[in-house]
């Protein structure tokens, strides 16, 4: 059953088109994350779902019921805001109970719910405090408690963790994931933090300029991006875009990188060539390679048909602890590579590396769309 369905929703602010024909459907119990650069329309979409912002065209269905022209109160939705939006004049208890009170839930039941939610979120000792007496993390918990108490069909989270410090953010991220698993709730979650997106989401929706570019599992969005924007938006450091020429040679289809006189050649996996790709032979394309696919040589790399050796100069080395990020020369450009921290690298070294082409993707350099 779809908990939330958005059909061709459009939103204009005067002449600015903030949302252009966005459609998506979320299953009950699904955790959907909306990502995109600021101004891409993700917050507007969120507000449209909540009913805080009327749409220009299209319709919104919650639990298979059309709610496009219903007030927020009538939509059975709860929202957790970036600023938490706790009512400053009320205690934590009153904050959590307010939604129930507005919905005329009997007092005894309200109190029981507050206790239950407080216990779930471990905020029972805070129930009689005012929001101003709470830390950021505690406010965040109360804001979630307020949403949970109502047991709505859909939860909206609007960058709920972005006001927390890094350590707390990781903790709360885990907590949200646990809550989602125990309560089985339907969640739409806006963030600009791609790690949040990758770790939390069942599916990720990538938006740009009011359009939904791609909707898929984290794995799909990461490994199988529809265009250069999605490819560059997910992953840090982002995917390398390497100008190349598509050529046909003894291996089948290959990518020629660097000077035309002496190019470095990378064969494209034969299994992934399509008839469409033939049309691109002899033309310029963009090769997309994630940094982790340019790494130190491994024994299995020698065996693997899609893995190719590359010995090149290192210009910058940035150890991050878990691994080392390198800038290395490839053709006429520099690309990012990721190697194990065991490697002993100094800038200027020539390092034997390997390129894993199994996950390589190709883009149209002009339209920036995916070719293969």
């Amino acid at each position, binding site marked *: 059953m779809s908990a939330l369905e958005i059909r*061709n929703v459009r939103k204009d602010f005067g002449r600015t088109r903030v949302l252009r*024909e966005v*459609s*998506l459907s979320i299953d009950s119990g699904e955790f959907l994350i909306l990502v995109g650069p600021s101004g891409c329309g993700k917050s507007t979409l969120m507000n449209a779902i909540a009913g805080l912002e009327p749409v220009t*065209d*299209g319709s919104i269905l919650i639990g298979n019921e*059309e709610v496009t022209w219903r007030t927020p109160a009538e939509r059975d939705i709860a929202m957790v805001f970036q600023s938490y939006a706790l009512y400053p004049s009320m205690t934590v208890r009153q904050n959590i109970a307010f939604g129930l009170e507005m919905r005329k839930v009997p007092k005894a039941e309200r109190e029981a719910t507050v206790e239950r939610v407080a216990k779930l979120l471990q905020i029972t000792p805070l129930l009689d405090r005012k929001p101003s007496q709470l830390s950021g993390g505690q406010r965040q918990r109360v804001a979630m408690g307020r949403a949970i108490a109502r047991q709505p069909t859909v939860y909206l989270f609007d960058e709920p963790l972005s006001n927390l410090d890094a350590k707390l953010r990781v903790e709360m991220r885990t907590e949200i994931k646990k809550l989602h698993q125990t309560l089985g709730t339907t969640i739409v979650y806006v963030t600009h933090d791609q790690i949040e997106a990758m770790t939390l989401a069942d599916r990720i929706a990538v938006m740009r300029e009011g359009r939904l*570019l*791609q909707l*898929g599992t984290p794995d799909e969005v990461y490994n199988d991006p529809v265009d250069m924007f999605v490819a560059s938006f997910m992953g840090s450091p982002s995917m390398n875009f390497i100008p190349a020429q598509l050529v046909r040679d003894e291996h089948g289809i290959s990518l020629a990188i660097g000077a035309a006189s002496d190019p470095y050649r990378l064969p494209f996996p034969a299994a992934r060539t399509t008839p469409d790709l033939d049309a691109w032979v002899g033309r310029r394309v963009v090769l997309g390679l994630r940094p982790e696919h340019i790494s130190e040589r491994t024994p299995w790399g020698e065996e693997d048909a899609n893995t190719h050796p590359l010995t090149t100069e290192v210009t910058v080395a940035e150890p991050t602890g878990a691994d080392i990020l390198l800038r290395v020369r490839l053709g006429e450009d520099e690309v990012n590579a990721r190697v194990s921290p065991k490697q002993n690298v100094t800038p200027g070294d020539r390092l034997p590396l390997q390129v894993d082409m199994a996950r390589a993707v190709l883009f149209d350099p002009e339209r920036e769309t995916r070719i293969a």
Partner: protein
Amino acid sequence: MNTRASVQPRAGHLFAPNSASRVRRNGAYWLQAWLPKLVLAPSVAAALFFVYGFMLWTFVLSLTNSRMLPSYEFVGFAQYARLLSNDRWLVASTNLVIFGALFIAICLAIGIVLAILLDQRIRHEGAIRTIYLYPMALSFIVTGVAWKWILNPGLGIQQVVRDWGWESFTFDWLVNPDMAVYTLVIAGVWQASGFVMALFLAGLRAVDDSIIKAAQLDGASLPRIYWRVVLPCLRPVLFSAVMILAHIAIKSFDLVVALTGGGPGYASDLPATFMYDFSFSRSQIGMGAASAMMMLAGVLAIIVPYLYSELRSRDRG
């Protein structure tokens, strides 16, 4: 499920078209959309009637020959012509220029100096500020009554100075037709300069500290820092202060009534007292209305550029 093609172009009309979904707006939605407007409606109606309507009404009256009661016999701009050739109006207008210019200039000078002095980490600053500003809490009538007594030629300051031994000292501005208007300046400045101080002090406190520190590192002296660095930052405050003071000056009515009564004769009349006198005591409603319109024009001449610049700077910001 990888929906690369999830952005179906123009498939929208298969689903709920705009008109259909609009029909489904229910009562709650309608109420939510209209309540704020309904709440504002009485105020808007009141403003339309009591502000804009009355302005228009006054303008209409200024075109008639209304005397004791409003009549609607139109005489064109004859009342304005009469007004501009009326000696008392000319005195009142001249007085407003004198009063306005001096009032604004002196208030600003005193206010700015006091604000800068108070900004030097003064002990008991709060108490001193309270003393400077309290006259603003008083009615202009009270101010007028107090200063009328202080400036009283027989028993006021004149007597004090004479008692101190300067027997020939005279200070009779209150009853001197040439000087009466300056007594308004004295009382007005006393009342409003503390307010200017408060405005500028707030402005000074809002100036970014690091600018001052940077100037100090550049080796500038304190007076120079104020003159070259801090005060230029306060141009918006200066602007508001001038506007408010001009507004007070144009509207000044109570102060004149209580302090000089417009006298001696009509030597210290201001447009506001002129308007009241002609409208309510002398049964010259047409001319009173014309003088009110002139006052409005004066205020607009000050306000409109202010609002314009305000809106423009906000657009830029």
